[in-house]
């Protein structure tokens, strides 16, 4: 089985070497200075919502799952992403610990890759085989997050619930479909290819059948674009045809991420949560036929951006990274007061508290009973403070003109566990299990 003649294996090893030195993902994670820059400064570092570039991603891309924070949040977004929500069977803290340890083991293997274990051919194979006999990292990340339902169900767990973790409420424009809402545990799985995300999901389903029951999942992708001249940034377009993520904070700015994304002492949250982050996941259907019948000028008025280049409407020939000057436009002459980007981020000193890190994917599911395309946005955003973050932003957006063209139908609020290391006894959620142990241990 082994042997240096296997070209796939050599590619893999080369990939590891490359990942250590020049992986495009490494740069985005390493940078930590520059807090004087604007939130969305074009620093030349990869942006979380930047469109993936053709020929730049490689099966050898390795994104470490280890560190103070889980991967898949401030690491650049690869071309494919999925959120899978599960019911958890865990009656005791020991059950939950067992589940989290097993998830940690699978994450360690799947993100690093390697040879699939060989078993007796009389037995079912150990792996689905989707990726062949040698699994390559392919920028795979698996982010583990817990839902309010899990905390609510167990007396031993509810005292440890992150302070702001609730079931996602219905916002005015939502049409909730119970079959794609909430859940005990969500996995966000991202990779360069759809196959890698599906492979990871199938591996986990097969590995933990007694403790995880799949409730729903939504896959998405973002368009891969040809390489741009150095320094030029293009955020990926959504299915409304607009650049999405232009105003996103710079995920490579660690100080800013500490303020916007990562739960810390400042939020008054339980100690075990520090280093984690709240996710708001929204499956937002886009009525694309209707949108495509809307005049271009109205589309731009509704979004607040030039469709072709993403520039703000008060400087149409600038770039999407240029910032609109709302102070000079107090009556909404250039950018309407109810334009999507102006409501979402009014760029006032106050609204800086409401910044969130968006990392969405487009989804395309099929055809509705009415014969219309069922597609939209798998919206995912991360924040240290859910009320100040997504909820405040959504409250401002309620009633926006864009609502005529979108309908949020699913998703949920989840809390991404703090990071973990490759130490033998570490695993995602170790901090939570430790906190439970301290409260239930005999005095």
């Amino acid at each position, binding site marked *: 089985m082994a042997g240096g003649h296997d070209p796939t294996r050599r590619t893999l090893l080369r990939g590891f070497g490359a990942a250590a030195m020049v992986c495009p993902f490494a740069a985005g994670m390493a940078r930590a200075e520059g807090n004087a820059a604007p939130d969305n400064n074009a620093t030349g570092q990869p942006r979380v919502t930047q469109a993936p570039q053709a020929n730049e991603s490689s099966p050898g891309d390795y994104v470490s799952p280890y560190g103070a924070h889980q991967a898949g949040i401030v690491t650049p977004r690869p071309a494919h992403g999925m959120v899978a929500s599960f019911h958890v069977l865990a009656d005791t803290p020991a059950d939950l610990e067992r589940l989290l340890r097993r998830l940690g083991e699978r994450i360690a293997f799947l993100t690093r890759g390697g040879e699939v274990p060989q078993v007796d051919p*009389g037995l*079912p194979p150990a792996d689905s085989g989707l990726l062949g006999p040698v699994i390559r990292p392919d920028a795979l990340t698996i982010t583990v997050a817990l839902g309010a339902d899990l905390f609510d169900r167990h007396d031993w767990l509810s005292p440890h619930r992150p302070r702001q973790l609730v079931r996602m409420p219905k916002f005015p424009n939502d049409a909730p479909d119970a079959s794609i809402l909430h859940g005990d545990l969500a996995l966000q799985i991202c990779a360069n290819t759809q196959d890698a995300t599906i492979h990871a999901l199938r591996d986990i389903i097969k590995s933990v059948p*007694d403790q995880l*029951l799949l409730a729903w999942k939504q896959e998405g992708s973002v368009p891969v674009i040809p390489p741009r001249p150095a320094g030029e940034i293009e955020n990926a377009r959504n299915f409304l045809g607009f650049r999405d993520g232009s105003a996103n904070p710079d995920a490579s700015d660690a100080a800013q991420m500490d303020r916007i994304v990562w739960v810390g002492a400042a939020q008054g949250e339980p100690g075990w949560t520090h280093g984690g982050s709240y996710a708001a996941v929204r499956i937002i259907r886009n009525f694309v036929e209707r949108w495509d019948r809307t005049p271009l000028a109205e589309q731009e008025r509704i979004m607040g951006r030039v469709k072709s280049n993403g520039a703000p409407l008060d400087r149409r020939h600038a770039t999407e990274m240029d910032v609109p000057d709302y102070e000079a436009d107090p009556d909404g002459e250039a950018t309407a007061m109810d334009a999507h980007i102006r409501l979402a981020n009014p760029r006032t000193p106050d609204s800086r508290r409401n910044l969130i890190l968006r990392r969405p994917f487009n989804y395309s599911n099929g055809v509705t009973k009415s014969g219309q395309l069922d597609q939209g946005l798998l919206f995912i955003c991360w924040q240290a403070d859910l009320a100040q973050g997504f909820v405040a932003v959504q409250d401002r957006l309620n009633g926006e003109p864009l609502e005529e063209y979108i309908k949020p139908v699913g998703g949920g609020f989840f809390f991404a566990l703090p990071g973990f290391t490759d130490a033998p006894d570490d695993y995602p959620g170790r901090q939570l299990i430790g906190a439970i142990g301290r409260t239930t241990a005999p005095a």
Partner: protein
Amino acid sequence: MKTTLALLGLMLPGAAFAQDATLALVGPMAEYKLYVADETQELVKDTRAFTDAVKAGDVETAKSLFAPTRLHYEKIEPVAELFSDLDVSIDSRADDHEAAEADPGFTGFHRIEHALWATGSTEGMAPFADKLMADVEDLAARIDGLTFPPQVVVGGAAVLMDEVAATKISGEEDRYSHTDLWDFRGNFDGARKIVELFRPHVKDDAFLATIDANFDKVDRTLEKYREGEGYQSYEKLTDDDRRVLAAGVNTLAEDLSTLRGRVGLD
């Protein structure tokens, strides 16, 4: 005589299994064939009473006989499915057919179930009742003359769990009568019978202990819904219990998928 020939058939060359393992399994294979023969006889007998009631227009009696009759079929489903033509005509659901309930190809138990529960009448059901009876007798005759492939029998334990996991746990099988828990019972019993017969050939006590524990867990959960000779409506099943059943069934399906290999069959 037929049974003897069938058993000899196990040893014919060219089949894709290990000769040694197959020889060692002759005993449990013969026992399994007896089990299937008994269940098939019961199925024929009960189907006759059921279809008689349908043809007599006795809706209440027919309703009361529906689930217990199916139980026998559910226990031997992996073997019954060796005859895919009969499985379709005996046990297909409306959504197996393009025109659903209105599809002329929608026959068998679920076609009559639809009449009994959804329309509350046996009108027009006599031809379906006759067809079901004929199909079940045909099945019994074919099983009698069948050489059981050992892989199908041993693998049947996992198949039964897959059936529950894939198409029954949601309550979609008996969607008009909601008698799904009876079918669960049949599938669990059929799978456990196979495990019991081949247990001596599995050299892994920890594996068997895990299997037993998971069977016990799903049994305990199912028994919470026992009512008389049978079970309460699927609609009574709580979300929590459904999840316990689903996780138990998924785990059994994973573990039992190794049973063929563990007894030395490909």
